[in-house]
Every structure is written in structure tokens, then in C-alpha cells.
């Protein structure tokens, strides 16, 4: 009997690259970057090998939670253009294998971090994996338009874990790094969802543009941007950031606000989404402002953390803590 193409695909053993894809390597690289920033900014004398192991564990933990996310979300991933090529909905990896990979790597990363570095960092990593895989993926994502606002905490915690790994404590400055990413997330994701809302609606995911409409989303992007930019300046007051950081945060923040204002005044999200399969940035004219904010938000966050990292690595003086 001839096998159907789908059956042939299912019977084929997955390639190792498929398992790597389950761990969302691009997200993992951002997690590594912010975790390293937390670890270095802590200014604590940690053995470099143990520091590297801590970052490795945080990366593996992020990969584990991504794998659990892909296991649980395979049904809706298969309905969206951006995600239907992922290993589980495409039939290259069995859902049970993605689950097993996620569980095994979660246990591995938390236990290794606890036994080699410290249990505060391991506990925070376990909480982050739980928050992303269970609270965000299984509960919030399909039930509320505030999904990415609350769920953003999972993406904001890696610098705190890095800080905890270096010092065994999580002071105010560690939570400031967390707050910056947490407050950055809504504007970043809603800008993206303004021009991918058709996909989310098709999959029944209650993203803000789907439930509250594009106009309300654009207004909320502006409100969150107005809250986000001042928070980016706070590290200067606590002595975490120096003069270069102040310049980058202030100038970049200004650009961020201008772009958020443009999104607010635009008709982003109103026009039908006519993107091609591969063109995440190939959007209609009305959504270009949303795309610009989305792209700049990535650059701005990267610049903020890179500046903090550079200042601490080069030993540049802080401006003097006020708080």
C-alpha cells in the first residue's frame, strides 16, 4: 500500500535541526544576551566558568519552555502563516517528543544551575519556565488580550536570573532590568500583531487588535510607550547606568515615542493583511508605522542592554546613585 505524503513525513525520523528549532534559537539568543547583561552588571566576582554554565542553563531553560510551548500550541501554530512551518504542526516532530524534550531540558537546566551555581537562580529559572509554559501558554494566551502583557514577565526574568547567579541576591537594579523588558513587551508585540492580526483571528487567539480593535490597540501602544521610556531612564538614578546609557536611553526613547505617536495617528491594522508567506515585513502601506515601531523596539532594547553591558565591562563610572 502506498503511503500518503503526510504519513511518510510522520514516519520519517526528525532531523536534529528540527529539535533545535523546537527550542526557538533566535529567542534563546536574546535571552542569553539579557542574562549576560544581568550577570555582568551585578559586578560580582563569579568564576567565569560558573558564569558561563549559568548562562548555558538559562539558555537551555528558555529552549525547554519554547519546546513545551510548541507542543501545546501545535494546533494554533498550524493555522497561522508565521508558525505553520514549525516542526510539530509541519509533522516533522511528534508532539509527544516535543513535550519530552521540554520536560527533560527543564529538569536538566534547573538542577544543573542549582547544583553548580546557586538555588536562588535555579528557583527563578524554574519559575520562569513554569510561567511561560503553564501560565502564559496554557492559560493566558488563549483566554485574555492581556496575554502578552502578563506573559511578558517570563521574557523579562532572564537578567534577574543572571544577577542572582552572580550574587545570590536580587536587588532593585536587577528588577529594574526586568521592568524595562516587561514594559517594552506590550508596545513591541502589539505593533507586530497590528499587521498579523488576521492570523491570530483565524487561530482564535485573543490578541488585542482582534478583541479590542486596531484603534484601541494603537492607543494602548502609545500609553505603554509613555510608561516604558521613563523606566528606561531609571538605571541612571540608581547608579546602574552611566552617561552613555543616559544618552542612548534618552535619544532612543525620544525616537520610540515619535514612532509610537505615528502608530497612534496611523491606520495600522485597519487594512486587510495581504502579506506573502515569507514576508513578515512585506506589509501594506497603512501598517508601515507599526512595522517601524516593531523593528525599532528590538533595536532600542538591544542598544539599552548593550550599553549597560559595555559600561560595566569597560568599568565606566556611573553618574551617582540618587535612589
Amino acid at each position: 500500500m502506498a503511503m500518503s505524503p503526510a504519513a511518510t513525513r510522520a514516519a520519517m525520523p526528525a532531523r536534529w535541526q528540527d529539535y533545535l528549532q523546537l527550542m526557538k534559537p533566535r529567542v534563546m539568543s536574546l535571552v542569553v544576551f539579557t542574562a549576560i547583561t544581568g550577570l555582568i552588571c551585578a559586578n560580582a566576582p563569579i568564576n567565569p566558568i560558573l558564569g558561563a554554565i549559568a548562562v548555558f542553563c538559562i539558555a537551555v531553560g528558555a529552549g525547554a519552555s519554547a519546546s513545551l510551548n510548541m507542543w501545546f500550541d501545535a494546533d494554533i501554530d498550524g493555522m497561522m502563516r508565521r508558525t505553520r512551518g514549525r516542526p510539530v504542526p509541519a509533522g516533522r516532530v511528534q508532539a509527544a517528543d516535543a513535550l519530552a524534550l521540554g520536560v527533560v531540558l527543564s529538569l536538566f537546566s534547573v538542577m544543573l544551575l542549582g547544583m553548580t551555581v546557586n538555588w536562588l537562580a535555579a528557583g527563578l529559572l524554574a519559575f520562569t519556565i513554569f510561567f511561560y509554559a503553564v501560565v502564559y501558554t496554557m492559560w493566558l494566551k488563549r483566554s485574555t488580550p492581556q496575554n502578552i502583557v502578563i506573559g511578558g514577565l517570563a521574557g523579562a526574568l532572564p537578567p534577574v536570573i543572571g544577577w542572582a547567579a552572580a550574587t545570590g541576591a536580587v536587588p532593585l537594579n536587577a528588577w529594574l532590568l526586568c521592568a524595562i523588558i516587561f514594559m517594552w513587551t506590550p508596545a513591541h508585540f502589539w505593533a507586530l500583531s497590528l499587521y498579523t492580526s488576521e492570523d491570530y483571528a483565524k487561530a482564535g487567539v485573543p490578541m488585542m487588535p482582534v478583541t479590542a480593535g486596531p484603534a484601541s490597540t494603537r492607543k494602548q501602544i502609545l500609553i505603554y510607550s509613555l510608561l516604558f521610556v521613563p523606566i528606561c531612564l531609571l538605571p541612571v538614578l540608581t547608579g546602574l547606568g552611566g552617561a552613555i546609557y543616559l544618552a542612548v536611553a534618552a535619544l532612543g526613547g525620544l525616537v520610540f515615542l515619535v514612532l509610537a505617536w505615528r502608530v497612534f495617528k496611523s491606520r495600522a491594522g485597519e487594512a486587510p493583511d495581504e502579506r506573502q508567506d515569507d514576508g513578515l515585513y512585506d506589509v501594506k502601506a497603512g501598517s508601515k508605522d507599526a512595522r517601524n515601531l516593531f523593528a525599532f523596539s528590538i533595536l532600542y532594547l538591544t542598544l539599552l542592554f548593550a550599553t549597560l553591558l559595555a559600561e560595566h565591562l569597560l568599568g565606566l563610572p556611573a553618574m551617582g546613585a540618587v535612589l
Partner: protein
Amino acid sequence: MSDPNLESPEAARARRGRNIALALGLGLFVLLVFIVTLVRLGANVAQQPF
């Protein structure tokens, strides 16, 4: 007619790739445990009064 129980060359390649990746992963894990032991044990030994 081809034997349905026979593994196709493509499937064999995929399996071989996975096995190599798993072997490398296990090897790295052993190396990791060895290095961590040296670092942790070394630090403790250095603090012992002789």
C-alpha cells in the same frame, strides 16, 4: 515493489544525524560535569589548611 520495512536513505541520514547530535550532547555533558567538579572541588581544596 520496494520493501516497506526498508529504511529510505533520507530516513537513515536523519537518524544518523540525530544520533551524532545526541552523542555530542552526552559527551559535552560529561565534559561539563568534569569541569564543574574541578572548579568546585579546586576552590574547596584551595581553602583547606594543610
